[in-house]
């Protein structure tokens, strides 16, 4: 589903190489986790895949079901089924959460040649999805993420994911700033979306999220490369021994 080959990325503003040849293949229906120390390039990978400004791809490719991601605008990437759950969801004063979601859902439907969802259908769908994530009506009415707690923001990300039904979901440090209960809620939301040929790339610093979202494959990233891949046991190894052992072993 998601194929990344030899991806080299540097910052636009300064001559600093962040990704130094990332190879990764996420098959449909699987959950891959990327772990790694701070500064290893995990978040950069998520931004480059979703099309954020400020990065230059100097080499390599990234495709989603054969579509060249790097050639597309962010909204086009979303429309073909890529979704990034942000580490820091942005607060947007003045734009209602509901308006935002409806505009997004219909923009994607339009891009895919589907009919727009009418207000009644949309309302019915969002109420049902929101309920599962314990998002109340007030949160839907408020401006996007404004005044939301850390947990509310992350639940709102998952709500967007549930509404947009993407093919490939990237979760960037979704566990950061969450207490155990909130993490469980978010993980339940993600798990509910598993299967149906959907791919997941879960980026995290700590192993604890992976207790709730069981990965099929775990990758360790360091200094802009994936240095080791393995099964879920690799995450446990990190949890017990830290990154030091693994990194010195592959060095």
């Amino acid at each position, binding site marked *: 589903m998601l194929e990344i080959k030899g991806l080299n990325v540097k910052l636009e503003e300064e001559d600093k190489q962040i990704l130094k040849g990332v190879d990764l293949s996420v098959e449909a229906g699987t959950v891959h986790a990327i772990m790694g120390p701070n500064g290893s390039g995990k978040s950069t990978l998520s931004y480059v895949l979703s099309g954020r400004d400020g990065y230059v791809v100097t080499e390599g490719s990234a495709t989603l079901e054969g579509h060249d991601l790097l050639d597309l605008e962010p*909204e086009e990437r979303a429309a073909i089924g890529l979704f990034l759950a942000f580490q820091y969801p942005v607060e947007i004063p003045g*734009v209602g959460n509901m308006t935002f979601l409806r505009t997004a859902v219909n923009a994607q439907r339009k891009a895919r040649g589907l009919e727009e969802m009418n207000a009644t259908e949309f309302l019915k769908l969002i109420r049902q999805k929101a309920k599962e994530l314990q998002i109340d009506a007030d949160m839907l009415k408020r401006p996007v993420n404004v005044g939301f707690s850390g947990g509310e923001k992350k639940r709102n990300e998952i709500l967007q994911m549930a509404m947009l039904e993407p093919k490939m979901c990237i979760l960037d440090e979704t566990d950061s700033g969450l207490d155990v209960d909130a993490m469980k809620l978010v993980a339940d939301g993600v798990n509910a979306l598993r299967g149906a040929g959907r791919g997941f790339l879960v980026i995290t610093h700590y192993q604890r999220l992976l207790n709730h979202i069981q990965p099929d494959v775990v990758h360790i990233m360091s200094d802009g490369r994936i240095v080791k891949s393995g099964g879920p046991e690799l995450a446990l190894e990190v949890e017990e021994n830290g990154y030091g052992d693994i990194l010195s072993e592959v060095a």
Partner: protein
Amino acid sequence: MALAQPKITATEERLSALRLPESGVWLARARGAAQDRVRTMGLPAARDEYWKFTPPGTLVQPEAPQAAVFRHDEAPVFDGIERLKIVFVDGVFDAAASDPLEGEGLQIERLADVAAQDIHWARDLYGVLETRGQTPVDRPLAALNTAYASDGILIRVTGHVSKPVSLIYHHESTSSDAILHHVMKVEEGASLTLLENGPAAARFNKVMEVDVADSAAFHHVRAQGRDHERRAATHIFARLGRESTFKSFTLTVNGKMTRNECVIELTGDDAVAHVAGAALGDGDFHGDDTVFVTHDAVNCESRQVFKKVLRNGATGVFQGKILVKPGAQQTDGYQISQSLLLDGDSQFLAKPELEIYADDVACSHGSTSGAIDEDALFYLRARGIPGNVATDLLTLAFLAQAVDEIEDETLRTEMAARLEGWLSRRSG
């Protein structure tokens, strides 16, 4: 101080292109006095401090610059709202297109109709509030208006009013130079909602004097529309009595040159004055909001909220002042002016001012100018919302804070819809 010769020449050139309308005793006196004021002040010139950001040339020159008549087929603003319509075409009252000038709790007359009368209630207001508003800053175009206004509407509100009064302007002649002067007197405990919309003329000079008596309320919502070549200088002079309310909102889109001045005097304790504006300027646009609020009573509240979105070389101006006079204790004054610059060619010029002579007051002001929030834009696009649609969403969100100042929900929705329509027509 004697005026400089070029200013005298420019003023006389302008006055010689005008004729004082026929008037009865009281109005003739008011007009004569206003004419004297114009000559004493001189008309605005490019180097005047108060016109530092806005070139007054085309507003002052003897002949109105040509302005194409803008035709479109969309529903007029306020179309779905039950209201009493008063229509002016190129500054001339259109009786056939207007509703009968009568309504519950209202006394409505044309200035031209009462001009010959010896006694009229408007005598105590016509040119009177304008004159008060000439201190400490000169507003010569308003004095010019008092002297030469060819028509206008006089409304006295005495009781319950069942629907808003709507002033509708039409522009038909490419060279019309309209001068209208309205007077609103809202008597104790009464309230009025006044709507204004439509392109008025090639060049428009309008003054509205509003006297809001004790416990009375005046709500004003104005849409300055789609006429791209509009040149307009408008003034509102409002005087507020005890526990009274004055709320005015203006939507400004397009127009080569628009200067809206609002001069508010809080003279009775516990009064509230809100003035707000949302403007969208694209290309050859110059929009100036100049506001002067004087607190001269205890425990009054004033708010100024102005937002402008500018692109393709458009210019926005805000000059806002809060003056707190000695003894105006417990004043709560607030002022914010912000611009969203959608490109590097556009500019926003702001001059916020506070002048306070009382010691127990809370006054704050802020002014910002910035580009669209790139993080927010990316967030929206990452959810599949195309860049232009996302920009429009953020633009509307920016303006919403000004639009939200409108109390009435129907009018608020109407203004928001107009802004949305304007944006969607432009985002190809």
